[in-house]
């Protein structure tokens, strides 16, 4: 039988180790540590095809995360995807004519939105829309186009 103090200490250490492990998993392994908790403003963008883009996918600029996708909808009149980007408030000087394209992490990785800054003096504000977009690269379409162009070359 352990003495009372020893017992308390060992159990205390055990609980502490467990908590530290949980904290480590949350802050260092999962996205809880990198999660943006501050303010953000919302910007819209229309795409012809968003591929497999998901809500919560990152929005990056020069590889740095500047926001997340907060909503994906469908524009019934223009038959386009209507994506709402939530940009962190500290990035408040993104030019109005910024170019948004859907990129893929790695060859088969998940898709995200990359922003290429334009040159305008006007900046994006809450509710504004990004006019210039480039759709996702859909593998089947790329392959299809490739075969089509080869076939056309052959006809010539």
């Amino acid at each position: 039988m352990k003495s009372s103090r020893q017992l308390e200490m060992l159990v205390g250490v055990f609980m502490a180790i467990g908590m530290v492990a949980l904290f480590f998993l949350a802050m260092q392994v999962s996205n809880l540590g990198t999660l943006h908790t501050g303010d953000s403003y919302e910007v819209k963008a229309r795409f012809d095809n968003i591929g497999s883009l998901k809500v919560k996918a990152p929005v990056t600029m020069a590889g740095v995360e500047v926001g997340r996708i907060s909503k994906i909808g469908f524009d019934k009149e223009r038959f386009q995807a209507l994506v709402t980007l939530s940009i962190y408030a500290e990035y408040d000087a993104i030019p109005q004519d910024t170019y948004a394209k859907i990129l893929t992490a790695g060859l088969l990785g998940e898709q995200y939105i990359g922003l290429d800054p334009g040159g305008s003096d006007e900046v994006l504000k809450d509710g504004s829309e990004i006019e210039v977009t480039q759709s996702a690269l859909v593998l089947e379409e790329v392959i299809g186009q490739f075969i089509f162009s080869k076939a056309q070359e052959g006809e010539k």
Partner: protein
Amino acid sequence: MTGLLARLGRSGIIFLRHLGRATVLLLHILASMGEVLRRPRLLLEQLFSVGVLTVLIIAVSGLFVGMVLSLQGYYILSQFAAEATLGVMVAASLVRELGPVVTALLFAGRAGSALTAEIGLMKATEQLSGLEMMAVDPVRRVLTPRFVAGFISMPLLAALFSALGVLGGWFVGVGLLGVDDGAWWGQMQARIDWNEDLFNGVIKSLVFGFACVWIAIFQGYNCLPTSAGVSRATTRTVVHSSLAVLALDFALTALMFN
């Protein structure tokens, strides 16, 4: 044919009877939770024998499982030139599946069997009867603290397993195989969601902990009060807990990550 049916029916009835008894016992345990708050010392002792004594095997296993995962994952991922996602693979498998499941299996073998044997022996040597005759409820005094201790310990042990697994994987992947350190952590943080992956993993380990201690305590309390009875009950604890954990894991995974 009828003999087979009869046997099937009989074991079905026995199973239901045990399930009923186990449920009654569980309700009794839950109803006497107040005791644990009133006398933290009882819980402390059990946290020691259920939790502290299980730390070592969990820590060592976690470390090695992480290292092996990293090694195996590297050879597969490097064929697709996707070594950068090694961290994600290791962390996701640990946090979602291996952490809770392997911890629960080890827990059943290390702590669950000990719980059953201890309670069974207390029954066989009339200590539980003795408590009853001293007007002390053995469920309240003996079983409830053990139950709570197991329930608290499991998620902590599973977290320890996963955390050390990630570190072990990091040591092999980044330290030995040369995966980029930034890619390892960065990809991991980008892709492991605290809510969907981590939190669900914790829920799993809570459910497994509940099932494992429940089975262990019931088997001990319900065993035949003889040496053979205790040893059979101990074996049953390990077998039933393992099966329960695997079945629950399938069900929970289907619910959570579909």
